[in-house]
């Protein structure tokens, strides 16, 4: 043993939960059925730090307070249900491991982990926000393939390079982490927001699509891409690693260089 002096001296067997740590979750609560004001509530739990923040929220809901309300489904970063603001940063609760966001001293978290709803959308209860304006902005950019002429009998051909051109923006799961991290969106909900532009980008740069002009016209609007101030919050927030700001810049570029 290299460090015999640090060995436990007692003869007791290691307890079954010694891999667990004690962490406090400070959660933003709001239920208009109960009170008009939101408030912070602390929950202290024992949990394996390799677990997800979503696991911690479930543990709190299932063991301490059944009224805690949040959305979730797939629990591994694919469905986009559980975007929330965790320690001040937009993330998916199911893709954030506790060990990666908490400092530990002697098995106890040095600071509480804060969890609050994403910003810029109306909070309906606890961590649940109204997603309808977000999806409306998405629908407004015509997020579907637009083609002219007769359909081919087989598939449309597309080179691997043309397919690669818009690969990044096909990864979007519509979780709203980007849009709700954008200061422009916070100050004015009329802005389409990064997610809608990402989804417009996905079609504008698809070699099969013939609707780029229409979409660019929509995004040339006063609430369109020009509102972007290149803050890069959206790129940092994206749980899918999409280069969101770059996509928005490419749409701006397309607007500048397009020919009428």
């Amino acid at each position, binding site marked *: 043993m290299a460090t015999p002096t640090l060995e436990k001296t007692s003869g007791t067997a290691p307890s079954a939960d010694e891999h667990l740590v004690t962490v406090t979750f400070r959660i933003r609560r709001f*239920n*208009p*059925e*109960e009170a008009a004001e939101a408030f912070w509530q602390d929950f202290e739990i024992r949990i394996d730090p390799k677990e997800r923040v979503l696991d911690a929220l479930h543990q709190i*809901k*299932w*063991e301490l*307070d*059944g*009224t805690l*309300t*949040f959305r*979730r*489904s*797939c*629990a*591994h*970063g*694919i*469905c*986009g*249900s559980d975007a929330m603001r965790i320690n001040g940063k937009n993330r998916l609760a199911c*893709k954030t*491991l506790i060990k990666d966001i908490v400092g530990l001293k002697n098995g106890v978290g040095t600071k509480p982990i804060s969890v609050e709803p994403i910003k810029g959308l109306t909070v*309906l*209860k*606890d961590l*649940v926000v109204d*997603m309808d304006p977000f*999806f409306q902005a*998405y*629908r407004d950019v015509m*997020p*579907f*393939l637009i083609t002219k002429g007769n*359909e*081919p009998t*087989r*598939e*449309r*051909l*597309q*080179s*691997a390079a043309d*397919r690669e051109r*818009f*690969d990044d923006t*096909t*990864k*979007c*799961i*519509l979780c709203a982490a980007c849009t709700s991290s954008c200061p422009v969106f916070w100050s004015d909900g009329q802005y389409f927001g990064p997610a809608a532009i990402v989804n417009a980008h996905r*079609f504008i740069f*698809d070699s*099969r*699509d013939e609707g780029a002009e229409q979409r660019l016209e929509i995004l040339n609007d006063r609430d369109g891409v020009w509102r972007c101030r290149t803050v890069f919050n959206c790129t940092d927030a994206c749980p899918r690693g999409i280069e969101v700001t770059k996509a928005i810049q490419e749409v701006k570029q397309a607007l500048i260089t397009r020919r009428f």
Partner: protein
Amino acid sequence: MQIHKYDTVIVGAGGAGMRAAIEATKRSRTAVLTKLYPTRSHTGAAQGGMAAALANVEDDNWEWHTFDTVKGGDYLVDQDAAEILAKEAIDSVLDLEKMGLPFNRTPEGRIDQRRFGGHSRNHGEAPVRRSCYAADRTGHMILQTLYQNCVKEGVEFYNEFYVLDLLLSEVDGVKRTAGVVAYELATGELHVFRAKAVVFASGGNGKFYKVTSNAHTLTGDGQAAAFRRGLPLEDMEFFQFHPTGIWKMGILLTEGARGEGGILRNKDGERFMEKYAPVMKDLASRDVVSRSIYTEIREGRGCGPDGDHVYLDLTHLPPEQLDAKLPDITEFARTYLGIEPYTDPIPIQPTAHYAMGGIPTNVRGEVLADNTTVVPGLYAAGEVACVSVHGANRLGTNSLLDINVFGRRAGIAAAEYAATADFVELPPEPERFVSTEVERMRNSTGEERVPVLRKALQETMDKNAMVFRTEQTLKEALEDIAELRARYRNVSVQDKGRRFNTDLLEALELGNLLELAEVLVVSALARNESRGGHYREDYPNRDDVNFMRHTMAYREVDADGNQSIRLDYKPVVQTRYQPMERKY
């Protein structure tokens, strides 16, 4: 309570529901009721691909695909349905491409294809490249593409509406579809949707297992609603365990990883699938691979200190290939296990994945009230349904196919029916069942807690009704479920409010899971043979004389209100293939 009226109501907005909605909306006034926002469905978690004999990269044809599907299903597949699946696969993939789906491409610009478990050239000669894919995000791309096309077609969605009951009315001695009852999550209000045609496309029920690839929301709500209204459930004992779930967590790692050349290894580094499936090796069908993994583990060749998993080894594949073809699953390994798949093998174990059984339908998606009688106006498609194209074991890439082929068929059939039919009178007090359940749950002062019961259910199902089963383990599961059902009557929730009461909904979902777990176990107990995903150690062989037939489970309630399950059987449709011994 509000009452709405639509020609066609679709329950669920995953792949099958949205594929149905695109067709139904063009033909009838349609509403889609979904417990999640549409793009949240678990179709999005599907990774590896969608099978179709496009023959873009090598020789292939739909007849080989039909054979593989029938053999993969251990001959319990209805062969007429499998033939439709394989034939319509080709147009189904091409339709999605035309809708905008960004498939991976060949150097010639065609849709690229890759290998997948159980899909073979010329009736089992060698693996064939049949899976059309978009990296390891094929389900995500299908879900997004279908939603995009729903936006294009102006499909009307009711988001976060939980359908909790199916309304049937008897007209001239025939049960006909009158509509559904839904609970609005945002307000707690009940809504009755009158409809001429209803399509259930509400997905699977894997959440009664602990280690599962299924989402938290996959609680069999559609199956349970139909079952409670006296409709049968078919082949529920056949549940698929996907070989490669992330150890302990159950998160899916696509079979495409083995299609790209990944290898399963035991603690000695041995490629053990060579012993069990000399031709197809790691690409044998899922039931075979999952049993092989557990055999390795049981015989002491599992990995780790507890010897409770094996490895999926991708380290011999070039990093560029992993980045291009398997970006998501390699990221899962990094995120959840802290493992770098370029250099280290990934610990895996079989994970509860897919219900082969469900609400019985014919090939038009029409729901059956018994072996032959159609329920007028009622349709089902996707994992909630049993056509049966998957038989005793589904082939990988056939479920993304199923939702597109039969989602489309059900959507068209429902809308065409609605165009000719009249609304059926609602039964008296149509919301009564749901309002009683909801109020009982909200007002109960019982001491039982939903999470405790759910955990106990998942534990007994994992222990007793998973890859290996015996009469004894199934009886144990049945006893546990009976006890849990009794305790469930004393369940109460902490959230008594009306607004976004997910506490209450988890309680109702648990009721569905308990109901369906019992059907699975009772059906499994009566099937004294091993076939596909149902493996009985006390009856290790397939028994075509006694069990070449579908199980049909019915809920019976006696005069005192006691509930029991009655089993009946339905013949399998065989056309061109005679049952053979299954070897890979």
